[in-house]
């Protein structure tokens, strides 16, 4: 019964979202502000409906209601509770429902965020948002109904893909979706601005928190996915340039560019048309990501949908939103007033450069991901575009970008002074050189690029710190003399300044972690109990191999003791091979031992009578990669708490309608 009610709630959400889409247009036509106000209620109501539907599906999963097709295909009575819950979005239908839930949640947030958004802009934005919701709910109920019943109900479910039965999966998709879908708000704002034919600093200010929030969540989501792949797949890589990974990286890069261009727009009233285009492109790439993942064009564990009708529907959605919004852009963008000039040597100039390199990097990833598909379609030639291509093209674009980061921060708005900026950055450059040379000396004979990367990371981090120090100390006559004043002023700086510095420092931290992987070592051997294997500065001893059983799997586990070269015990870890009888699948569980920021990583290979295959990696400073991403997201979060993000345009609703005045829109 609850399942049917959930289904009904979804149908209700479909109707409500259509109402939400139509109301602002009607309000503009009839000039009736009450209609505009009703958009807010519609957004809240459709969120409530989708939330109910999602709760109903979750209930069916938790109670193992095997009369529901979706539960049969993805659940099992013996599955631990946490995976019964995460199993709700571990499949196509459920993940789309989660996508829509987040979509309507954002709609509801825009609806209640009264101070931040001018009423007309809010209503139009909610209208666009309502239309997106309508199309996606339509997709769900017509092609991918999560509430479909099955009769007769089987006694047991088919269980969730074992690779997905992991705490990482419980968090990875929701974070990623909040990021993806969060950009729908920016998109809706952009389309609303195009419809309105007006865009200004108020728009930029209204959009910025949403962009920043979406970006922060996407950062965390990608980092989480990367860490999950690192420990779950068992061969120690953290990024594979896999099409599905690229699909999440592209909106992230475009979103990063967007976060920066909205700043320019807010401060300098420049780059307006570009920002609108970027907002459209970012969400388009999010949609493309959804398409790449779900259409079955690229088969993978993420491609829950291999049904061609769904593929066609998704393609239609893509054409509608991407094509539609770009057409609207081409038609309406000339109406938007171009404002604010910028000098090449200024902070806005450097932010333009930042956008140039980010967009070029994004375009490279896009071309690299889609090129094999297009080439095969056009000429029949089959080629592969793999990690060597992306490393060769992406890194040369990323390095100049990293070099500009502290530079841009050291330049003033409007007109900057390169020499003064370089002087201010002297400390950063000197320190980076020292760090790089020290790393080179310590690892003499090792790879040369790793110390260069570490130096680059150090430069970005010190540059971020200098930004805070510089601003706190002040310039010219205002220059503080005592350290106490500088410290006091530093604490008085707006939180967005701290957030920016933190996010930039996070980039540097991640760069150091990535560069340090040049020093990673790998060893491989067949071991009998008592045998040893050395990798880097660590030695692993195989203590024993023993069977183990979990709630829904059988496991062969190898227990290792890790010692340093002098024979002191550092710790223990175990790695195993799990077999899930319900799916007839085996999964490697890697064993990790964290030593400071580095990790010893073991992965079990073939188990044979004469010994077990064992792979041992030493991953120096590897945790910095994800820690850096977390610091970046924290920087975004800190900026969000800035007062300026919350105070916005005055509320017009409190003013009585003016007699005789015609509404401006």
């Amino acid at each position, binding site marked *: 019964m609850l399942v049917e009610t959930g289904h009904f709630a979804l149908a209700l959400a479909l109707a409500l979202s259509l109402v939400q889409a139509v109301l602002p247009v009607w309000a503009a036509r009839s000039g009736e502000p009450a209609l505009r106000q009703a958009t807010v209620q519609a957004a809240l109501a459709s969120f409530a409906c989708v939330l109910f539907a999602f709760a109903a599906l979750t209930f069916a999963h938790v109670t193992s209601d095997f009369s529901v097709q979706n539960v049969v295909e993805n659940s099992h009575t013996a599955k631990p509770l946490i995976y019964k819950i995460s199993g709700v979005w571990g499949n196509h239908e459920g993940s789309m429902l989660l996508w829509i839930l987040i979509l309507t949640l954002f709609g509801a947030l825009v609806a209640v965020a009264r101070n931040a958004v001018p009423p007309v802009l809010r209503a139009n934005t909610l209208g666009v948002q309502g239309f997106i919701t309508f199309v996606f709910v339509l997709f769900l109920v017509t092609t991918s109904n999560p509430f479909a019943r099955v009769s007769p109900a089987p006694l047991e479910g088919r269980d969730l*893909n*074992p*690779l997905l039965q992991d705490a990482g999966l419980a968090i990875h998709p929701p974070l990623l979706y909040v990021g993806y879908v969060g950009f729908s708000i920016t998109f809706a704002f952009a389309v609303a601005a195009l419809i309105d034919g007006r865009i200004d600093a108020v728009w930029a200010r209204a959009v910025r928190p949403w962009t920043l929030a979406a970006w922060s969540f996407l950062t965390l989501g990608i980092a989480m*996915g990367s860490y999950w*792949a690192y420990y*779950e*797949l068992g*061969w120690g*890589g953290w990024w*594979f*340039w*896999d*099409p*599905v*990974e690229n699909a999440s990286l592209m909106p992230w890069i475009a979103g990063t560019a967007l976060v920066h261009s909205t700043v320019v727009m807010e401060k300098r009233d420049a780059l307006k048309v570009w920002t609108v285009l970027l907002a459209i492109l970012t969400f388009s790439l999010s949609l493309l990501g959804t398409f790449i993942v779900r259409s079955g064009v*690229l088969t*993978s*564990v*993420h*491609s829950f949908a291999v049904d061609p009708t769904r593929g066609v529907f998704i393609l239609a959605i893509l054409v509608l939103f991407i094509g539609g919004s770009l057409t609207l852009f081409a038609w309406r963008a000339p109406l938007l*007033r171009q404002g604010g*000039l*910028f*000098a*090449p040597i200024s902070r806005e100039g450097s932010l*333009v450069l930042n956008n*140039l390199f980010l*967009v*070029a990097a994004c*375009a*490279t990833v896009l*071309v*690299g991901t889609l*090129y094999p598909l297009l*080439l095969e379609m056009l*000429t029949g*030639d*089959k*080629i*592969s*575009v*793999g*990690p*060597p*291509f992306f490393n*060769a093209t992406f890194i040369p*674009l990323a390095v100049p970008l990293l070099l500009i980061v502290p530079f841009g921060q050291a330049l003033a708005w409007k007109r900057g002074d390169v020499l003064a900026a370089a002087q201010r950055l002297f400390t950063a450059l000197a320190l980076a050189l020292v760090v790089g040379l020290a790393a080179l000396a310590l690892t003499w004979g090792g790879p040369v690029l790793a110390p260069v990367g570490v130096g680059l990371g150090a430069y970005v981090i010190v540059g971020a710190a200098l930004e805070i120090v510089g601003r706190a100390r002040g310039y010219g006559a205002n220059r503080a003399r005592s350290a106490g004043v500088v410290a006091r002023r530093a604490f008085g700086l707006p939180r967005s300044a701290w957030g920016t510095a933190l996010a930039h420092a996070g980039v540097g931290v991640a760069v150091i972690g990535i560069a340090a992987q040049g020093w990673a070592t790998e060893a*491989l051997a067949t071991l009998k109990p008592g045998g040893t294997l050395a990798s880097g500065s660590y030695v692993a001893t195989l203590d024993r191999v023993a069977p183990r059983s979990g709630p829904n799997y059988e496991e062969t586990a190898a227990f290792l003791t890790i010692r340093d070269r002098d024979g002191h015990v550092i710790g223990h870890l175990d790695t195993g091979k799990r077999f899930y009888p319900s799916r007839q*699948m*085996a*999964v*490697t569980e890697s064993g990790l031992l964290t030593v400071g920021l580095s990790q010893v990583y073991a992965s079990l*290979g*073939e*188990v044979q009578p004469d010994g077990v*295959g064992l792979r041992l990696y030493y991953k120096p400073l590897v945790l910095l990669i994800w820690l850096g991403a977390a610091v970046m997201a924290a920087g975004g979060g800190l900026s969000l708490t800035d007062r300026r993000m919350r105070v916005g345009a005055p509320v017009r609703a409190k003013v009585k309608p*003016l007699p*005789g*005045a015609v509404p*401006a829109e």
Partner: protein
Amino acid sequence: MSRAGLKSICLAACLAAGLGTAAAVQPDEVLKDPALEHRARAISAGLRCLVCQNQSIDDSDAPLAKDLRLIVRERLKAGDTDQGVEDYVVRRYGEFVLLRPVFGLHTVLLWASPLLAILLGGFGIWRLARRRTPAPERRLTASEEAEIAALLKRE
């Protein structure tokens, strides 16, 4: 990750065939000469596992990947250069096997894409920076003027 998917598919295939589980490079495949083995690993990382999705033979569990790894090592032992080994594999399996696409007429747009993007963007910025005259201020509409007048009256 699609690698996860393939890994599972490969594993499932291995299990179904009764081969037991396998994981990437096996200890028995490793060459005695560390320098030669190092070269073999580097070459393997650039060759695609043909039955997998975007996975190198160095990472793959598939039996076919194992065969290819052995071929690479055999050719190296026979004295081939790195390029020679690659050419040998490409002759047998086609260009699809290379994870780093060769530069040619059919891939020129692919390899040029970063440069093209920078040039195109740079041109756009140059045009934007050159436009010295600011656009004229937008005039307020009559309704906006009326609104301001009304607001001022209320003050």
